[in-house]
């Protein structure tokens, strides 16, 4: 299997200028890889830096040190040193991220929120909406809600819109931050099926999941984030 993601010796800390320049170490020496069709689960207690690692791979957090190589086609991009335009292009077609919470945009309907990543890379609006609708249906979001903006949805409903948005494209690298945290058992099972289907299609997945049953059902490998603890 080909390697899609290679994280090498990555370190991250926050310097908090409003707290007199206090440095908050997050992680140090993070190294792991994910291959096509493989799901790597990041494990560790809250505050161990799991979400920060996902955000560094997606480029919304910066790295202090190290490299994050993403392989796509014959190319290789080091996210740790990529400029904004390179990152935007990578997010368009290569790496998708399901954040813990949906950032709802006023007035935009749930189905359009989910379809947006496809439209952004050139899929026709109707086809994109159709595929988004398929996913929302599989995630048991009643179709009377598709036309509504998700701002007023419950946590679980918003999360399903967010999952549909992350899975609607065909990105070869998928980052999932607690995708099942506010879902019931039936919808957790749907997410497990969707993730496993993506693995069979060769998607590399890095996930954070606290549910033991979900983790057991999707993980090929567990990476213990506490081994990357940064000394305070």
């Amino acid at each position, binding site marked *: 299997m080909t390697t899609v993601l290679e994280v090498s010796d990555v370190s991250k800390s926050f310097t908090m200028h409003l707290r007199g320049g206090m440095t908050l170490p997050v992680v140090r020496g993070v190294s792991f890889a994910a291959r096509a069709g493989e799901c790597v689960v990041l494990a560790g207690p809250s505050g161990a830096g799991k979400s920060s690692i996902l955000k560094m791979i997606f480029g919304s957090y910066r790295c202090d040190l190290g490299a994050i190589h993403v392989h796509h086609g014959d190319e290789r991009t080091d996210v740790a040193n990529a400029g904004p335009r390179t990152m935007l292009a990578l997010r*368009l077609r290569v790496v998708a991220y399901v954040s813990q919470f949906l950032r709802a945009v006023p007035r935009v309907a749930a189905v359009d929120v989910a379809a947006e990543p496809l439209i952004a890379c050139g899929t026709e609006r109707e086809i994109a909406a159709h595929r988004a609708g398929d996913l929302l249906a599989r995630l048991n979001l009643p179709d009377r809600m598709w036309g509504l903006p998700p701002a007023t949805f419950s946590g679980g409903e918003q999360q399903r819109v967010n999952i549909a948005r992350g899975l609607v494209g065909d990105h070869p690298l998928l980052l999932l931050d607690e995708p099942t945290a506010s879902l019931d058992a039936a919808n957790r099972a749907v997410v497990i099926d969707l993730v496993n289907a993506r693995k069979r299609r060769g998607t590399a997945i890095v996930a954070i999941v606290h549910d033991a049953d979900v983790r057991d059902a999707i993980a090929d490998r567990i990476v213990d984030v506490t081994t990357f603890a940064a000394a305070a």
Partner: protein
Amino acid sequence: MAENEQPLLVADGLTRWYGRQLGCRDVSLELFEGEVLAVVGESGSGKSTLLHLLAGQLAPSAGLVRYRMRDGVTRDLAALSEAERRFLARTDWGYVQQDAALGLRMAVSAGGNIGERLMAVGWRHYGRIRGAAESWLDRVEIDPARIDEAPSNYSGGMRQRLQIARNLVTQPRLVFMDEPTGGLDVSVQARLLDLLRRLVQDLGLAVVIVTHDLAVARLLSHRIMVMKGGEVIETGLTDQVLDDPREAYTQLLVSSVLPV
């Protein structure tokens, strides 16, 4: 977004003094087609000066602005004749003012406001101009039946939407926006933002938007440039700058926003 394409707009070392008062110092940037750049900072940070320099409305004390014209040739704005610069501003560029009254002719009908830009690019057929104006009113969610009313009859939100229609009717490739949602009620703001977001996406516009509202920057922009005291202190991907701000001032800006 191909990596090898040429930028649409390039600024190099832009500096502007107002007498001994600094407007902005040594600002360089590249903007590509379809890209939205938000310039954020507080009042007096130099962001409006920068916008005026980029749009050729103000001459720099030092530095230059280059623009890739529709014929593919990149030209120095300072080297354009006044007529050429005006033509550019009326056709390939848009400029959305915070105060719609400055960007519109308040005593002229809505249709006239939109039609004027088309006439500047040579449209002469009255029926076709009116048709285009009606379709643009519809696109910015103004009832086309109100085409003959002057914008002085319109609400603040409608005026702003009319100003956007007036700017976009000539299919510009680059639009400058100066606090386009400033001074509007929040519900009106949300509608305008949603409209802007869709138009920018559908038309593939390049945009430089000046705003002090980080939520607006988050919603609309790909990249952010943070200004303070006339200088750029931090730039990067929008979510990177907002979620992991590096500079003390950016951290202060981000942490000063009340979560809703």
